[in-house]
């Protein structure tokens, strides 16, 4: 039934005492016709026992009492409007607001790091969804299961009330509990790392997770991976191998990073500068399980020297940044001071 038709039907229902007094919806407001200034109009979420009336403003004019809810009546909800007169039972009308049309179900598009071997001290995982998701209780939909035993790993993640969603609601950052990853801390000593080298795991994202429209995911998603020994080493830009493109083309400059890097940070923190230090406009991407960074310029390369600019806060998936490893021992010799920005030159011919 169309929304408009439903409203018309609701508006045409004759209510108590044979009176032709009607309650109807009009442009998101609830309206009582043939009302008096002494009447009051209240709107409730239907079936929500004990809840107060919706916040909003009532106005009276020319025999019409109008209630404008402070927030719009929401799709998929039922509202109970009550017109209270000076005496007698209130006139009650329930309005159902139709759900908005649902398109293709939302699905999990990718999990990063994308490799099927991951270090035991893995810190950060990104879940990418095809549409905005609902917030709150997200961790209950993510499970980590050890393959051989089929046992769930208990509390592997840092469960934050302030869930780490990207502004568009389509990417969630999941952190493995740093208390368990860091050596010398109680959780680490008592429970060990959540992941054990040599073992295989399944990271499962349940279809019960609701998107921002309140609809479940298309299907449950599973990522299988095997665990390798811990990675305590920082990304090392001086050791990266740059393959320069040819002048006059828009072929990408390709950089072999020698290890998997954090995808979000690599896309944000590596830039190409022209000889005049201007930022080259183009599109960066990561392939080969985030070990190859490439950059395609919008306009063809000119012959000459270019530079890659790498921000030192670039990390690998274990939280080791260019500037410092995730953990530093004060007993160890201090690493040589690393500039906060690294530059790598390449020549376009």
């Amino acid at each position: 039934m169309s929304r408009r038709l439903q409203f018309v039907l609701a508006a045409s229902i004759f209510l108590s005492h044979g009176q032709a007094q009607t309650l109807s919806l009009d442009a998101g407001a609830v309206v009582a016709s043939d009302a008096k200034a002494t009447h009051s109009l209240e709107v409730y979420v239907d079936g929500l026992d004990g809840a107060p009336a919706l916040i909003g403003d009532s106005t009276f004019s020319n025999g019409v009492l109008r209630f404008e809810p402070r927030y719009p009546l929401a799709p998929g909800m039922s509202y109970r409007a009550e017109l209270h007169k000076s005496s007698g039972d209130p006139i009650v009308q329930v309005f159902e607001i139709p759900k908005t049309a649902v398109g293709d179900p939302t699905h999990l598009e990718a999990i990063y790091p994308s490799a099927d071997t991951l270090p035991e001290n893995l810190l950060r995982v990104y879940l990418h969804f095809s549409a905005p998701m609902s917030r709150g209780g997200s961790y209950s939909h993510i499970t980590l299961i050890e393959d051989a035993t089929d046992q769930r790993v208990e509390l592997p993640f840092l469960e934050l009330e302030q869930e780490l969603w990207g502004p568009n609601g389509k990417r969630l950052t999941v952190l493995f509990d740093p208390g368990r990853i860091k050596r010398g801390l109680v959780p680490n000593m008592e429970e060990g790392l959540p992941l054990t080298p040599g073992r295989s795991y399944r990271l499962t994202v349940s279809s019960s997770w609701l998107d921002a429209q309140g609809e479940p995911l298309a299907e449950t998603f599973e990522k299988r991976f095997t665990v390798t020994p811990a990675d305590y080493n920082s990304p090392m830009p001086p050791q990266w191998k740059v393959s320069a493109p040819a002048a006059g083309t828009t072929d990408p400059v390709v950089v072999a990073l020698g290890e998997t890097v954090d995808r979000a940070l690599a896309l944000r923190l590596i830039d190409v500068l022209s000889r005049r230090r201007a930022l080259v406009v183009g599109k960066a991407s990561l392939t080969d399980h985030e070990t190859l960074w490439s950059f395609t310029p919008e306009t063809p390369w000119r012959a000459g020297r270019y530079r890659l600019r790498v921000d030192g806060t670039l990390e690998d998936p274990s939280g080791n940044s260019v500037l410092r490893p995730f953990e530093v021992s004060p007993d160890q010799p201090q690493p040589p001071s690393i500039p906060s920005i690294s530059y790598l030159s390449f020549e376009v011919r």
Partner: protein
Amino acid sequence: MPLRKPSIVFFALLLTVPMCFGAGLESLKPGVANLESAGVLAFGPEGVLFVGDSQAGAIWALDTADREPGSGAVNLDAADTKIAGALGLTPDRILINDMAINPISKKAYLSVSRGRGPDAAAVILSVDASGKIAELSLSNIPHSVAKLENPVSADAKDRRGNSLRAQAITDLAFLDGKVFVAGLSNEEFASNLQTIQFPFAAAGKSTSVEIYHGNHGRWETRSPVRAFIPYEIGEQPQLLAAYTCTPLVQFPVDQLETQTKVVGKTIAELGNRNRPLDMISYSKGGKKYILMANSSRGVMKLDVNNLEAQNSITEPVEDKEGVSYETIDSLEGVMQLDRLDDTRAVILSQNGDRLDLRTIALP
């Protein structure tokens, strides 16, 4: 009682005069406060409410104009259902993000997301001693805003499309004219504590310090702060910070403002499988305590009478160590807490499938 009325008027005048001219209220300008999200809350002077807006990467100062002294207890059973109803939704379609008590009126203020998607409306509500829910209108409210440091330059955004980086603000506190903000990025694993002067400067610039906890065994570690409170040890103002990985660490406030990197002193290890949620400090029977709500170890009452003499924990510990505490068994499912007065606190706690707002006696 003919004498009483004038005295009330006199005291009311005493209270209102400094309110109008001091405490930064004059820096708040009326207009629309366009909050993108409403997260952590803290009250400043004279009914000024600070709101952490993670989505906008900003701290808002809002004049609640709620300066009528009150003393009543706040109690609201099934607060989530009632708040959802007032906003026209069912409780599964809202999120209650934080709760703070206005120290003057004693009303509870709650930050709420109306909706669960990225377009959810940011709502600030108050609950008074009668259980009445009222919305703090943001459409014409004296306010100011301070943007947090954001390493994503506008330059980078323009060239690469919108950045997905966001800063989750995990806690904030007001002390001596400054707002302290702890946050956690959804990309790099940094642990910065930002300090913002209030009244906010025109540019609203913050200073940022990288903080570390002390040496756990051998490892100097950085980790995001989960919750913190200002606290005086001896006569020196400190921040007591509870970490995501359970240690309790103290930082001298003056160092946070003058240095770029501060290593705090670890004064307690509070055990595994635990995440601190919220903290308050109070005195009872001449002794000082901190009450800390946790994700899985219940509510802890920490004895903080001898913090000056507390040694830094520098060796790995087997379970818990440092400051002693007892677990308050009668308090279950506590997610938020704030002090109501010298003897009472208000808690927001999970009770079965509902959230209750309750006033309790400080243990």
